[in-house]
Structure formats: C-alpha cells, structure tokens
C-alpha cells in the first residue's frame, strides 16, 4: 500500500490542477443550483421555467438543431466529394487541412469575419448594393437568430467533414463489389448497404455538432452585444448583471441546465460511436 502511495505522488500536481480548476467549478455550479446560502432550495431551478429562460432554451435548441442538420448534410456532401477523389490528390489534403483549421475558427474572429462580409459596411453588402441595389444587411438580421444560424454553419460544416471522412473511408470497396456482383444497382447499393452502415456515424456526428453549437458562446457574444436570445447569452446576462428576474445566482441554474443537456447529448454520441466502430474501422 505504501508503494502505491509512493507511486501516485508524481500524479499529484495533475490531479490538484484538474480538481481545483475543473472539478471544483463544476461542483460549485451543481451545488449552488440547489443550495441558496447553504439551505436547500428549488428557487433557482424553478427560475429555469420562467418565460425568459424557456424562450432562451428553445432558441438555443432551435439554433443548435438547425445548424447541426445543415452542417451534417452539407458536411457529409463535402466529405463525400473529397473522399471520392484520389487519396493523394492535393484537393483532398487541402480541404481536410482547411477544415481542421476552420472547425476551430469559432469565436470572436468568426463574428468579425461575417461583419466584414455582410455587416452594414460589409464587402459583400456594398458590392450587392452597388450592382443590384439590394440591401443585404437590412433590418440587422445578422444579429438575430437567423444570422447566428448562418455564422454557426461556418464552423459546423468543417467539423462534420473531419468526423465524417473517417466513416466514409471505412466503407470498403469490397462491399460495393459484392453488392454489384450480386446484381445490385448503384442506387440499391447506397440504399441497402452504404446508407444503413453510415447512419449511426451520421447521427453521431449530428449529436456532436448539436453539442458543439449548444455550448458555443464567443461567436454569439461578439455578434450580439445586447439582449440574450439564446441560453449562453442569458448566462452572460445573469453573470454580469448579478440580478436577473430578481434572482441572484440564476447563472448557476442556467449553467446546470447546459451541463445536463450537453452531457446527455455526448452520452448518446458515445453510444453511437461505439456502434459505428463495430463496422467501420
């Protein structure tokens, strides 16, 4: 036993760091959502069912689900385009490298990229104005939910490409040959072999994209400076103004809501990944 203690001593700095800066904050959120000044209370949880909180949650789900669907479908198309080209082609390498960068390209820089493109004085806005006379930036839709959907798509598609390319590569050529030699048409091969095989991977990727969008904060925060249409921005409001809806500590309950949803989605995602791994490795 003493040997075991001696052997675990070098692990102490790591465990200390993770405990203090990851476990403690998370535990603080969970505990503080239920305890107000040391007394158990459901007041903060109850505030989650207020109109403001429910509307933010609904819009967050809408944003995450729509960008996950758009990202998953378009990302799968792009993944298929590059997988069906030669493995050594420059195009394939370039697209995958670019996607790996762009999938990380969330946050503030992305918000400003779209402001520079279709903001009030954006490059595309001015160009369209000059040539067609339309006002692309009209009514400030870029700062609304529609705008967020467009902007989020920009990092969702590349993320889909990165996670879905390995699944497409796992489709073995022999399976197609076997299907064709048994008399299947291309359409039948896709409908009865490829699509069923890819479905778990596709659904898994969809969930990953959903969680990715749901937890994203910086892009929306940089784009929408006032108001809190979605859950992460409501958390910002609760944190910075201390009192929202006359509820201090509301941020804890909202953060707990976020943990629960992201964790549930990620558990489902892991289950699907394990299922995918059975065939496509």
């Amino acid at each position, binding site marked *: 036993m003493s040997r075991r203690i001696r052997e675990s001593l070098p692990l102490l700095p790591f465990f200390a760091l993770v405990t203090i800066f990851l476990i403690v904050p998370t535990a603080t959120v969970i505990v503080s959502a239920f305890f107000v000044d040391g007394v158990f209370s459901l007041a903060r949880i109850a505030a989650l069912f207020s109109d403001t909180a429910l509307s933010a949650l609904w819009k967050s789900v809408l944003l995450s689900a729509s960008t996950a669907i758009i990202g998953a479908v378009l990302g799968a198309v792009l993944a298929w385009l590059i997988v069906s080209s030669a493995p050594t082609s420059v195009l394939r390498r370039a697209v995958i*490298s670019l996607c790996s960068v762009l999938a990380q390209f969330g*946050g503030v820089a992305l918000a400003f990229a779209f402001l520079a493109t279709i903001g009030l004085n954006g490059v595309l806005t001015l160009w369209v104005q000059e040539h067609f006379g339309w006002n692309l930036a009209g009514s400030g839709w870029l700062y609304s939910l529609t705008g967020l959907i467009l902007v989020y798509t920009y990092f969702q598609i590349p993320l889909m490409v*990165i996670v879905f390319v*390995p699944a497409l590569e796992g489709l073995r050529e022999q399976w197609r040959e076997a299907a064709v030699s048994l008399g299947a048409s291309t359409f039948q091969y896709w409908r009865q072999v490829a699509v069923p095989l890819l479905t778990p991977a596709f659904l898994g990727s969809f969930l990953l994209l959903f969680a990715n969008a749901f*937890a994203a904060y910086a892009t929306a925060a940089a784009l929408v400076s006032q108001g809190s249409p979605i859950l992460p921005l409501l958390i910002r409001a609760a*944190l910075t103004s201390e009192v929202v809806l006359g509820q201090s500590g509301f941020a804890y309950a909202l953060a707990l809501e976020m943990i629960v949803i992201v964790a549930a989605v990620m558990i489902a995602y892991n289950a699907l990944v394990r299922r995918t791994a059975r065939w496509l490795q």
Partner: protein
Amino acid sequence: MRGKTLGGKVFRGALLAAFGLFFLFPLYAMADFSTRNLLAGGRTMAAWKNLITDDALYQAIVISLLLAVFTVVLMLLILVPTMIWVRLRAPWAKGVVEFLCLLPLTIPALVIVVGLRNVYLWVTYFLGESALTLTFVYVVLVLPFAYRAIDAALSAIDLKTLSEAARSLGAGWLTTIARVVVPNIWSGILSAAFISIAVVLGEYTIASLSGYETLQVQIVLIGKSDGPTSVAASLATLVFGFVLLLILALVTRGRRRPTAADPAVATPTPATQPGVPT
C-alpha cells in the same frame, strides 16, 4: 461512379466551387475590409498599424502571447511527466487520467467560468490580480487536445524499453524523461504546444467573463467603435494560427510511420470534438 461522366464532373466542380466560395469569401472580405479607407476611399494600412500603435490593443496582444507561453510551459510540465508515469509505474491510473483530460470537452468553458468565481478569489488572494492567473484554467482547457497529441506520440515508441535502458545505465527519472523520452516524442509535444497556443490566443469566454483584457476581449471592445482594426486583429490571429498548424503539418509529415493515416488527416483530429472555444 458518378464522378466519371462529364455531367458528374461539372456537378462536382460546381459544388466544390460553392463550398469554396462560402468558406473563402469571408476570409477575403476580412482582408479587404481591414485595408479599406472608409472615408476617403482607396486603401489604407491604418487598421493594421493600430495593432502596434494602439496601446490597449498592443498590451492585450502581449498579455495573450504571454498567456500562451505560460500555458504551454505549465501544461507540458504537468502533463508529460504524468502521462509517462502513468504508462510506466501507475497503469491503474490511466483510465482516470484519460477521463479527466477529455472531460473539458463535455463541460463547456461557459460552465467552468460560472463556477470559477470562488476559486479565483483564492487565486488572486495568493498570486495577485493579473490576467496571467488565467494560465491555470487555460491549462485545463487545452488538456484534451494536448493529451491526444502526446498520447499518440507515446503510443508510437517503446517507452518501457527506452526507460529501462536509460535507468539501467544509471539515469534518474528526471534525466530519463528529459533526455531520453522527450526527444523521442518531440512531434507530439510540438503538436500539443501549437494547438494550445491556437486555443489560448482565440479564447474569449473565460477571459471576458472574468473581466481580464486579453486579445479577444480587446478585439470585441474595439469593434464597437473601430471595425477595421478589430477585423485586422482577428485576421492576424487567424493567419498566425493557420501558419502554426501549417508548420506543424510540415514538421510532423516526415516523422510519421507509414501505417499512420495521411498527415493532413492525422493532425487535425484534436479539433474533432466540441469544447473548442467557439
């Protein structure tokens, strides 16, 4: 398959062009927007000059670069010995360490910052009020990416034999790690460091909600009055990150085993999970 007919080729080409336009146009727009002279027309580099001459922005750039360096150093000092030790002497802890390293992918940075207030009261009590104290929480933030990079490098070498050889020749643990193991996992360490730098330079969530003025926080502040400067700074960060990843791809290309996947595919895997500071 479809791509072989002429119609198929045109269709594929059109699709690729559409994707290319969607992804590359905003980048071009940033370059155009940041060099445009809004008042007089024509081109100006004023926004780019502001990166150096604007005092607040320059300070923020320095802070962010320092944070990136400190985060990388602390991450390597903690993670590398831990991961080597777990493989050699404490295999029972491997599962826990891996779980904890990947946990930040499931717990959004926004949640961490909500629960961080009390912890930081203590941190600032001991270390003083400085943006550099963000180093600790940033190390946690980069753990998943760093873990994967270093884990891949460690799996590629025969760690046990190497360390036993070094130890039997009389080297202590520190010498073994620093002079025998580290040189052999250099590509993994480099990749962990570069990805960490990219994450720290792009981090906004924790810095802004903790009230520290890092680069990204300053970019948003300036954006309210001076769009072109913010766009220039954003593009600069992005290009810097892109160059880092490009160097990484070039450096690690020659070192990969033939069985490993295409380097372009293998390097980006750390980015495939949420928790990326978006």
